[in-house]
């Protein structure tokens, strides 16, 4: 019945790990050919792989794990998916209903543990309700603001036979609002017509709304001529090669993007949530602007920043209405003022905040990513990342032309996300180039998934910027803790080439800037999983940077400016 429900929901791939309490489901999986099961090496990897699958396809990712430790290992992935609004359906086995509460072997209160880290969860105690709950689970995961859901299924319920209920689209009581209020949209159009310094600030909501929303966004940006910046999660919704593109904003965002946020007079937030990585210090956040916010989740609006024009609805639907209303009122903008605004922006752009020249014999991480971009951008390419400096550099130096091409752990900042996510992406796109830009410390957190990559011959490229440090931790210790580098370097790292070979994969080591291009090309040309150990400068810091407790116009652009910039108030922030 469970497999039938998954098939009816259009599931083709399940990431999982068997165990005692899910054996009946695994027995069903064994006896069918419609759904492919990917055996991961750790349940956390299963959830991140499902996230990669979901983020790169727009379809929900599905995970199957056992009770107790199987479920608790999935918690990090669930929390990651919750914070980044990724649709995931996790099925967990549970001890039989008559043993629940008895501290049985591999028993955990799974729905209790996962209640705060799922959008919703269910414990199914009656077999007749199972099919209905599974369909509802897919509906909840993908409707409204997407998110992870979990269905906990006791073993006796798995064994019993019950009545299967087919999928019915309108059965659910959960029907979030998707159309925006036309009066509010008209109010925003009026502001757009008169704005002197307008700015689009877009986020992951545009990606989640589907490719149609990205198309509408592109049309809107080109038609109005307004500049656009995006959060980490929204990269690719507007093409990086577009001339209205200011680059990513936020703590490690581009100078021109952050300065434009600070000085704009109309901020149009489309599917972003004013995360603290974006806003910097709240009282000084974009003090001169009127703010409009389009979001499908009413709780995002006014949560941290006061909004003048709130619009609750799905980005795609709202943008469609917005374009329609703006066109019907004569396609007006204050073009002379916007022209001046662009002049100002171009001055900021001229600072060229990402300029990073390769000097000397040690590879600079920025240079490594510039070369990776140059050599891989013409491929049908998907990028995942781990978390830390390399993640920010990847966001700065790689260009994304399409949505769903960039998978990263934004909200939770989960080290160990990128490798399993790259496996999920490669499963969904077997013919494409999938690269995980990693740091060696993050990568080691889920390195066991090499077994998965090799078993299914998934040609994922693990591009490790190896500085033998927890680079971002080290950077903060340098700036905030008197250069006392407490526990932020690894004294015993593996030989990554031998490690790759031990798993039956290819390893490449590169420590010479002159050989970098050849080595990257070798990685791209290899048909199979590769660990690329790129030895880089150990003390490189990630700039630009808005220090904790500072405003967008108080960015640090380089090493010379870092002395004593963060005061006591800023140093308590994360």
């Amino acid at each position, binding site marked *: 019945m469970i497999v039938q429900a998954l098939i009816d929901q259009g599931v083709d791939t399940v990431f999982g790990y068997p165990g005692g309490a899910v054996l009946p489901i695994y027995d069903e999986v064994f006896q069918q050919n419609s759904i492919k099961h990917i055996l991961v090496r750790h349940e956390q990897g299963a959830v991140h792989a499902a996230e990669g699958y979901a983020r790169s396809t727009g379809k929900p990712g599905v995970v199957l794990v056992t009770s107790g430790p199987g479920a608790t290992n999935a918690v990090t992935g669930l929390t990651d998916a919750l914070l980044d609004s990724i649709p995931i359906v996790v099925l967990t086995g549970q001890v039989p209903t008559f043993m629940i509460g008895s501290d049985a072997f591999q028993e955990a209160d799974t729905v209790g543990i996962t209640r705060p880290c799922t959008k919703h969860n269910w414990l199914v105690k009656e077999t007749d309700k199972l099919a209905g709950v599974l369909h509802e689970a897919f509906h909840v995961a993908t409707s409204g603001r997407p998110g992870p859901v979990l269905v906990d299924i006791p073993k006796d319920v798995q064994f019993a036979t019950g009545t299967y209920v087919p999928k019915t689209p309108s059965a659910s009581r959960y029907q979030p609002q998707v159309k925006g209020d036309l009066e*509010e949209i008209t109010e925003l159009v009026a502001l757009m017509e008169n704005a002197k310094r307008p700015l689009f600030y877009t986020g992951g909501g545009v990606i989640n709304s589907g490719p149609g929303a990205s198309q509408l966004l592109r049309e809107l940006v080109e038609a109005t001529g307004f500049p656009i910046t995006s959060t980490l999660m929204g990269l690719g919704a507007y093409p990086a090669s577009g001339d209205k593109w200011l680059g990513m904003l936020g703590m490690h965002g581009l100078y021109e993007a952050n300065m434009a946020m600070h000085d704009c007079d109309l901020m149009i937030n489309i599917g972003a949530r004013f995360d603290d990585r974006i806003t910097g210090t709240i009282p000084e956040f974009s003090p001169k602007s009127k703010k409009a916010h389009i979001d499908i989740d*009413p709780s995002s609006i006014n949560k941290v920043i006061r909004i003048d024009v709130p619009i*609750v609805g799905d980005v795609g639907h709202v943008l469609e209405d917005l374009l329609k209303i703006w066109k019907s009122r004569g396609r007006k903008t204050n073009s002379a003022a916007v022209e001046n605004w662009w002049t100002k922006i171009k001055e900021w752009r001229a600072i060229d905040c990402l300029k990073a020249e390769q000097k000397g014999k040690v590879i600079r991480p920025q240079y490594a990513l510039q070369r990776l971009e140059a050599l891989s951008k013409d491929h049908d390419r998907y990028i995942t990342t781990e978390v830390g400096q390399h993640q920010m550099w990847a966001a700065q130096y790689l260009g994304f032309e399409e949505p769903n091409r960039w998978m990263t752990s934004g909200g939770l900042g989960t080290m160990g996300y990128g490798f399993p996510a790259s496996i999920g992406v490669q499963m969904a796109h077997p013919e494409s180039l999938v690269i995980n830009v990693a740091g060696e410390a993050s990568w080691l957190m889920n390195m066991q998934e090499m077994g998965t990559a090799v078993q299914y011959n998934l040609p994922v490229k693990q591009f490790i910027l190896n500085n033998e440090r927890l680079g971002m931790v080290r950077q903060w210790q340098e700036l905030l803790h008197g250069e006392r580098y407490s526990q932020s370097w690894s004294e015993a790292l593996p030989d990554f080439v031998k490690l790759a070979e031990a798993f039956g994969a290819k390893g490449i080591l590169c420590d010479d800037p002159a050989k970098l291009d050849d080595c990257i090309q070798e990685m791209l040309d290899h048909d199979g999983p590769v660990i690329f150990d790129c030895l880089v400068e150990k003390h490189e810091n990630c700039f630009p940077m808005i220090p904790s407790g500072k405003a967008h116009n108080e960015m640090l652009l380089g090493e010379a400016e870092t002395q004593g910039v963060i005061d006591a108030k800023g140093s308590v922030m994360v």
Partner: protein
Amino acid sequence: MSALKLKKGATSHSAYNLRPTFSDVIERHTLAVLVENEPGVLARVIGLFSGRGYNIDSLTVAEVDHTGHLSRITIVTSGKPQIIEQIKAQLGRIVSVQDVHDLTVEGPSVERELAIFKVIGKGDQRVEALRLADIFRANVVDSTLESFVFEITGAPEKVDAFADLMRPLGLADVARTGVAALSRGA
């Protein structure tokens, strides 16, 4: 349910006010939350308050519609207006929550609480306790030669006032149900 009088900026989903005032004054609001009566739903609501650091001044819950599987949770909470709006929006996000009503802003409402007081005393104190109970329309539901148990129903302020008067007269134990509330009128 009565039709909601939606303000500008509110949504049809619930009583959200998307244009709250950003003042620093702490307000006390009574929220009525209609939820599907399923296992764990109260934990979801309480977990939201503890997880996000909101206040619960009082909370009552009971099934109100057996056939529709609906329970009504009445929560009295306090916070700045922006926080109150955030609480309502966060409650609205919970999948098993059907409806959120802010009785404090949606027009007049009645609030009632039931409390039981045990008062131990002798002589004049005992007579005075009984006399005050009469004034407050509290009922005696248990009596010994040395004690009374009073039952009182009313707005929380009335229950507070009764408790203040009973304290010097030998108040020994209190049980309160928390607030149940409904909007007035049709």
